[in-house]
């Protein structure tokens, strides 16, 4: 799913393959899935971002333009991942969008406390889900201007 020049635009952290597929299908429909990396747990996400483990050879300067983060993840929990991202100088400016099934208030509250940029509760209906993912991809990749 990566294109050849190694530029990553979206990091999708999602353990559920069907949800991942649905998300990627929606992004693909809006032509936003070209430079997308999908990791299946929190540990992989952190390894990818900080270029360690399986991603040790990766260029740390190549940071994604947006991270789509599920909260319920194996190994390292999504909130932990968020905390790590937002407390590291190298990654803290990366926009993180929590994309989760949870509508629990405490998840929402904690995410914002940790500095999340957006919190999206995944709608069950695919139409709505698809629309939400496409819109947030557009927003963060095309409209938002990150600091240089």
């Amino acid at each position, binding site marked *: 799913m990566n294109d050849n020049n190694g530029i990553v635009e979206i990091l999708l952290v999602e353990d559920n393959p069907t*949800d991942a597929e649905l998300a990627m299908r929606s992004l693909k429909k809006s032509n936003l899935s070209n430079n997308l990396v999908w990791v299946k747990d929190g540990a992989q996400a952190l390894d990818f971002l900080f270029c360690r483990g399986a991603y040790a050879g990766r260029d740390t300067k190549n940071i994604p333009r947006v991270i789509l983060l599920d909260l319920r993840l194996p190994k390292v929990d999504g909130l932990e991942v968020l905390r790590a991202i937002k407390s590291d100088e190298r990654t803290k400016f990366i926009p993180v969008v929590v994309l989760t*099934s949870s*509508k629990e208030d405490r998840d929402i509250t904690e995410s914002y406390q940790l500095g999340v940029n957006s919190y999206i509760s995944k709608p*069950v*209906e695919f139409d709505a889900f698809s629309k939400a993912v496409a819109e947030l991809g557009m927003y963060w990749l095309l409209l938002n201007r990150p600091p240089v």
Partner: protein
Amino acid sequence: MKTERSGVSEKANASDSGRYAETKKLSSRIPAQGSFRWQIILVFVVGFFVLIAAFTAYQVRTESAYLYRDSTDETITLAESIAASSRSWVLANDVAGLQEVVHSLQGHTGLYYAMVISPSGRVLAHSDATKVGQFVSDDQSLALIKAPPRNQIMIDDASRIDIAVPILVENRLIGWARAAQGRKEIVGYLHNMMLSSALFVLMAVALSLLAALYIANRLGYRIGHLVQVAEAIQAGNYAARANISGADEIARLANSFNHMLDVLARDEAQLRAASLYTRSLIEASLDPLVTISAAGKITDVNQATEQVTGSSRAELIGTDFSSYFTEPEQARAGYLQAFQKGPVTDYPLALRHRDGHVTDVLYNASVYRNAAGEVLGVFAAARDVTERKMNEAVNASRLHLVRFSLTHTLDELLEETLNEAEKLTGSVIGFFHFVEDDQISLTLQNWSTRTKAVFCKAEGMGLHYRIDEAGVWVDCVRQGKAVIHNDYASLPNRKGMPEGHATVIRELVVPVFRGTKISAILGVGNKPANYNEEDVSTVSMLADLAFEIAERKKAEDKIIELNLDLERRVTERTAQLADANKELEAFSYSVSHDLRTPLRAIDGFSLMLLEDYADQLDDEGKRLLNVVRNNTSRMAHLIDDILHFSRVGRIEISFVETDMEQMVRDVLDELAPIIAGRKIQINLSVLPKALCDRAMMHQVIENLLSNAIKFTGKKDDARIDIGGRIEGNQAIYYVKDNGAGFDMQYANKLFGVFQRLHGIDEFEGTGIGLAIVKRIINRHGGTVWAEGEVGKGATIYFSIPIPS
């Protein structure tokens, strides 16, 4: 000696009374000078005497005057007739003739003498012939010679009347004719008359005396009777009454007198009864009563005072009131206060008996006055408060023991109980035993502090004794009642004391009964005086109390144990519940997260089929996939609702005063999109403010209004009324619509979770709305109810408490 003396005095008395009676008799016969009868007799006798005497004197006098005048007239006539007969003879100077004339008169009765004399005084003729020719020589006759020629009274006295008549010839005096008549007869007659008159006077006096005596005696007896009665009354015979009949003044007086005596007697009897009554009252009082003079001397006492002081009434009266108290100065200050400042109440003093024992009293004192309002003295009443003080002491002990029991062990309590029993009875030994249920043996539980320290060196705590082997101190168990041994040493069946045991002089042991069985005994010993019934009741009370507290303490220990157990179990259960709650929360979290993911997959992949394989699916295939998608959506809603409902139960409520009208308007604004295009008349009345959680109440209003909007969906003239009122301490609100309504027999199902009264194709919804409303209102302490009718509409009410 004694008898003799009394005999003499009796005799003296008898003679006294005899003399008295004699005097009385005499006095009734011979009136005493100055007495009423004497006066009557005097007036009668003197009156009659004077009257009759005067009358008689007047009669005699009148008669004598008449007789004298008559003799005078007769003498004049006689003298005149001599003069007439003598004239010619004088002229003729015929002495013999003259003598003849005079002589002819010789036979005239009463003639004293008769004579004719010449103007010169020569007797021409005389009834005593010897005197003829002589010249008169007496002064009277000589005076006649010079007298004018008219009738002359020569002598007019009691012995005679002598008249001289001039013999005139042509107014020339030729001589005097003199005639004298004696008056002896008249005098004799008058004398007789006076004699008989005197006799009459005497008779009259005698008669009047008799009459006076009669009247005086009659009057005098009746008055005397009254006097006697009066004297008898004076002497103390109040029953004496006058016995006089008749209609006269005396009888009336006697009646009045008797009546007066009756009234007096009645008043006297009443007075006596009143006095007796008052005295009885004073004597009936168990409280010592005393009257005190201004000088502080006792003037009267009742028997209670005699008893409490040990002195007789005679000894008490006249002595200083204050001298009978332990603190005389205080007693004096007490009655002085009554004299100076007015009534004194509950003045505490202690009366000292002759034998030295002291009675605590409270005095009430106030002054008493005579009819004129002058203070005569102080009336003081004492109330014996020995019993009250004892009761107070006993009550204080009770309170002390009850308090003591709260912070001390059972053993300490029993020891303290024994100390109190010692204190209240003046004992120096105290012991407490529990009696076993079999009533065969007992266990020494404790001794008083003093007993342990001073008297009983013998070890014995916790020792068991068999009642049939124990000494006289368990007599109370054997006899089943309190036992006093005031002469312990002389008891025949007593046993020896163990080594180190105090010598027992007196002993009082009381049982504590539980039902028919004795549960414990409490004993005290060696009071300096004998034990009495009062001690029995005091010690029994303390024993009962100690046992009661002991039982209660045991029960309390049990309760504490049970409570601790309960608390432990509650903690345990709470922890379990908290765990369960946590699990439930984790479960809802999973539900919200994990159940939705597969649903989304089902929906998403169904859609992919529809999108990517549309050309390979016929219409039925597409419809079936859409059914899958609809149900997925519905299930997603159900999950959301479950989560929502559970959240409503968990979230903490923050109460804020809320403007309900404003809240309804806000909700209506939010619902505007679904109202748009509908014709609904919405009426919002005045709503009371509510104290509630705003977010939750917002949810309630939203659910109710959206329900109303939903169920009026098929009405052309939809109408929704929102109203409220205060009823007691509740604020009641309602939302009323004229929509589909419901059947009242299902009213109880209306608020159940996922309960629906309409078909899903009729009205959409999961049936959670009213369940959430009910849950929120219940959590506010309120209630929810509904009224409705199929086709006519429904009204949902809810109430929440208003703060008082």
